């Protein structure tokens, strides 16, 4: 009687209760141990970028036409910086940091010996990644508002947007954590996925400057939608097209969140 391990039943069922918040709390407490360093990046990064690109490039670039209005380059750039940070915070939290917890610190092993289920652990991790995106976004909003580049009250909607975007990027990050054999192999998704998005999602220059095929390709990239949504909100340009962007993220999460849990289950439950 030979039965493969994949054929056997998963104990604990794939059932998620509110208990996942315990995992989130654990990460929050650890984050609280060195929050000062955690706060530094989102505080300084926009300043550096706005000085380097904003001041340095504005003279050369001049105004940019966006949705029929003329805006100066810093207005164009600042929301993209927020969007990039939303992506990076969740993605890096649920790749490198989650991997360290899973593989080196055996945190998930310890949790799985408690009433927590694997599904709750992964959910807690992804919601935590999204929370880090929100924290970073809040800090950046404050800093960028000092430059007067955010339109209020619409700009406040960027906070819930950061949460949604964070879940999307955290889910795909966790998906990679479920499949990479070694931690240094995160280089591959970063080089092939994160870096091209960072450059070509309408972040530093309008997407219209790209050849048409590249513009069509960019429609599939989550960051391009996040940049558009963030930019519209920070410029106060509410429009119906934003629903498409939100719909994109809902579908993205519906695909990658279960996929992440599935890959982590395969990785951890043997």
């Amino acid at each position: 009687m030979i039965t493969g391990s994949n054929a056997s039943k998963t104990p604990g069922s794939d059932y998620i209760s509110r208990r996942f918040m315990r995992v989130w709390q654990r990460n929050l407490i650890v984050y609280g141990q060195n929050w000062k360093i955690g706060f530094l990046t989102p505080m300084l990064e926009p300043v550096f970028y706005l000085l380097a690109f904003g001041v340095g490039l504005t003279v050369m670039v001049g105004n940019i036409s966006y949705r029929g209005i003329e805006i100066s380059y810093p207005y164009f750039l600042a929301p993209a910086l927020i969007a990039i940070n939303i992506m990076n915070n969740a993605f890096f939290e649920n790749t490198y940091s989650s991997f360290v917890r899973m593989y080196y610190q055996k945190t998930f092993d310890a949790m799985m010996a408690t009433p927590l289920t694997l599904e709750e652990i992964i959910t807690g991790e992804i919601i935590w990644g999204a929370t880090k995106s929100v924290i970073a976004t809040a800090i950046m909003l404050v800093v960028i508002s000092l430059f007067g580049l955010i339109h209020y009250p619409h700009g406040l909607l960027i906070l819930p947007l950061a949460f949604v975007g964070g879940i999307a990027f955290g889910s795909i990050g966790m998906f990679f954590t479920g499949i990479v054999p070694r931690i240094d192999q995160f280089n591959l998704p970063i080089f092939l996925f994160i870096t091209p998005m960072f450059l070509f999602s309408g972040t530093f220059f309008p997407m219209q400057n790209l050849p048409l095929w590249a513009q069509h390709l960019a429609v599939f990239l989550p960051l391009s939608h996040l940049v558009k949504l963030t930019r519209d909100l920070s410029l106060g340009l509410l429009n119906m097209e934003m629903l498409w962007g939100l719909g994109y993220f809902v579908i993205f999460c519906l695909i990658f969140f279960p996929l992440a849990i599935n890959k982590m289950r395969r990785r951890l439950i043997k």
Partner: protein
Amino acid sequence: MMEPIIEALHLRKAFGNLVAVDDVSFEVFPGECFGILGPNGAGKTSTIRMLYGFSPITDGSLKIFGLHISQNMRTSKARIGVCQQDNSLDPDLTVLQNLEIFGSYFNIPRKAGHERALSLLRFMALDHRKDTKAIELSGGMMRRLVLARALINHPDLLILDEPTTGLDPQSRHQVWEKLEELRAEGLTILLTTHYMEEASRLCDRLLIMDQGRILVQGKPPDLIRQYIGRGIIEVRAPVPALRMYLKSQDLHYEDVGHRLIIYLNDDDNLYHEISNKYCKEGCVMRMATLEDVFLKLTGRELRE
């Protein structure tokens, strides 16, 4: 008859083609300390990982607290304390925080968790280090902290995977003392180990397994009596005449090259006979131990 805390029947675990646990059946009763012994790779850890729901069973049946494991995992896990082989403490957090956060996974209210953590730290003699980061503790202290953490939910069953591996003798004895105290309080304990001294000292009953299968199962003194007998004579650098003598007398012995291990029979004069005639020095009579049973059953080859 008391209902067993653990009831494993024909348990089997396969990873692809590799069968790690094969037809393992045993029961652990309330208040008992039960040991799973075996060389590295025998399937000890695979067996207990199924017990705390870490790993789905491939075949067989497994009941904990009278409930089938696959259906009642969350309720069962709430009543089990697990001390894993790997150190899984949160290095960035303090000793106290490690316990409090772990308590929250069991939905223990904050205040109750705090008090429980403090009393466990006193029990494990770690209360003076409660604000130290876990990463700064010594190996023995870390293990005691992991043990304290496994007790945070007042478990009805404590599962320990090699609780003293890598500890110095002082720390090991301290862990043993704590485990003996817990046992005296009536806690049911299941432990894996490859230290025979640990098993003889702590376990009421045990099983020895190798290559995924159970070799023997029973109480340590019974196993020693059954498989080794009353005692052992060890002879260093034996002379050839001794081997001849042993063969002629039809005695049980093991030849390890430069050493002979002779199992004592009912003849009280055997030791005098051997020590007087065949070895003036390097000849020792001693009590048989669990280690003798273990080596006899699992062989002396290295497991690597």
